[in-house]
């Protein structure tokens, strides 16, 4: 008791350290996407898929220029020859170089799939956003429409549309986009319904954010995860459908090449020259395989709740 009394304020000095400094975060901040990347990277399958995809994409770009042939030049002196010289995959029934055609076709197939995915995005995301965000009667009507459309088998619509439109890159992508956006709209709507009741949305609204700002700045970024996952699975579906359509005779017109067209041409030669089917079929399967691996990986990385 006695000693305490002898202490005067001038004996004390303020400490040098600042409270703020003590609490400073020295380690690198982990953003959401950083976290996603970390999880994606630790998934071996997804990484393999990603690398495969990268290689295929690069080959689709540079592959056709790696030897002197073009995808449509015919050379009747080298018909149906298995790999020789700089015809690394051999030649087809018209003496066209199969290596060039395969990679050129892979590029076209990827292009069609990306276009189809873009249609999904541009129709499905706004539709789902509006339906989920506004709710009430708007949502009710928009959902009734979806319910009716959802029952229509994609296959039937795509085939009919392609019978009507002349099958080209754009037409095929359009036909797939017209049917594909429904899944996307459902996914986005579901997410929107979940987000709508979250506190930060209420906070933003209280602070006077306009509807468009709310949707674009606050809610869309939070829907990106499921949207990306949906896209990653709709791309291989589109690639498959393109090949499938070509196989039943609704592919893009010759001399253009896509993987589907090449497989269809190869199938006709299967008994005599099986290699003409194997190369494009292998590339097609690899692309689908890679996309599925990456899609699985992204789903696990973006949505850890789903992870088993």
């Amino acid at each position, binding site marked *: 008791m006695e000693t305490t009394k002898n202490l005067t304020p001038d004996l004390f000095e303020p400490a040098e350290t600042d409270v703020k400094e003590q609490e400073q975060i020295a380690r690198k901040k982990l953003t959401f996407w950083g976290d996603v990347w970390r999880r994606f990277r630790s998934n071996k399958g997804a990484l393999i898929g990603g690398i495969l995809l990268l290689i295929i994409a690069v080959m689709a770009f540079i592959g056709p220029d790696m030897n002197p042939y073009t995808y449509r030049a015919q050379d009747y002196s080298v018909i149906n020859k298995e790999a020789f010289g700089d015809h690394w995959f051999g030649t087809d029934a018209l003496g066209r170089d199969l290596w060039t055609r395969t990679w050129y076709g892979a590029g076209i197939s990827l292009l069609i799939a990306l276009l189809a995915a873009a249609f999904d995005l541009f129709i499905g995301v706004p539709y789902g956003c509006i339906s989920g965000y506004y709710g009430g009667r708007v949502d009710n009507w928009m959902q009734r429409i979806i319910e009716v459309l959802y*029952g*229509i*088998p994609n*296959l039937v619509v795509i085939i009919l549309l392609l019978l*009507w439109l002349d099958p080209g890159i754009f037409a095929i992508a359009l036909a797939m986009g017209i049917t594909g956006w429904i899944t996307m709209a459902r996914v986005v709507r579901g997410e929107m319904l979940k987000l709508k009741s979250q506190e930060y949305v209420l906070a933003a609204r209280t602070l006077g954010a306009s509807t468009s700002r709310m949707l674009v700045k606050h809610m869309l970024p939070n829907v990106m995860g499921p949207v990306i996952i949906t896209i990653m699975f709709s791309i291989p579906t589109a690639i498959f459908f393109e*090949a499938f359509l070509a196989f039943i005779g609704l592919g893009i017109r010759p001399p253009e090449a896509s993987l589907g067209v090449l497989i269809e041409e190869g199938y006709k030669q*299967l008994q005599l020259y099986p290699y003409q089917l194997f190369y494009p079929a292998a590339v097609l399967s690899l692309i689908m395989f890679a996309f599925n691996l990456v899609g699985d990986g992204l789903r696990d990385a973006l949505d850890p709740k789903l992870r*088993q």
Partner: protein
Amino acid sequence: MGRYILQRMAYMLITLWVIITFTFFLMHLMPGSPLQNVEKIPEELQEAILKEYGLDKPLPVQYVQFLGNLAQGSLGYSYKYDGRSVTDLLMQGFPASAQLGIQSIIFGSLVGVLLGSIAALRRGTWVDNTANVISVLGYSVPSFVIATLLSYYVGVKWGILPTGLWGSFQHTILPTLSLSFLVIATIARYIRTEMLEVLGQDYMKTAKAKGLSRTASIGRHALRNALIPAVTVMGPLVIGLITGSLVVEQIFAVPGMGWMFVESIQVKDYTVIMGVTIFYSALLIISIFLIDILYGVIDPRIRISGAKE
């Protein structure tokens, strides 16, 4: 429940009507006509032919006529096969397609369940990894690639099984196999996820604690509960099988509906295209409906309410 079913049926009808209308008008917008080599046929004859098939009337009239006939169960007559009704052709093609579909669902489900549960029980080991790779492969390799490979190796090179035609069970093996890869992949993947979830449940611990043998606890408790949600993948599977059957039937020359459909597209046999489209759509709509109902019946935890989610 009763109200839900009625509501769903109303939707099914609307969906079907949308499909029919869409198909009908799109079909008539198509370039070209069902008459081939038009320029070689004299005018009067052309008119007579069009008249016979009712193609000379204005489109709305044809549409109403078509709907009227459909209500009476008639899908019209094929243009290509003279005098054969579309219903007749459908009934001719359906058995082969249905047999292939059912066989591949049964075979695929059996293998898929086995693969999926083994993967879940041996989680993280090489068995699990191999099963996973197999299922992603089954997902990724299109059925027509599998079909052509099977037909080339098993059929042509090794000559074990017939590569085409229809008749005995042997003829069905290769097409069934080609179609079942997708089923195996889908089911295995699903069962694995469900199995992992079920294995972590408390009742599994109870089963173990009360001294149930491993086989009994897995067979009677784990697998049964894991199987229930797998019913939901049946819808997409049916769609996948129908898509696959279009090309697989062509590859193995199976006289089924898929083959007929592709052929009718190539020769612009309007009535057959319409018929098969309506048939496929109805089949899909009804099977998805049945699956939804079935789902609610098998698992009482899923309550089907009045279409509100």
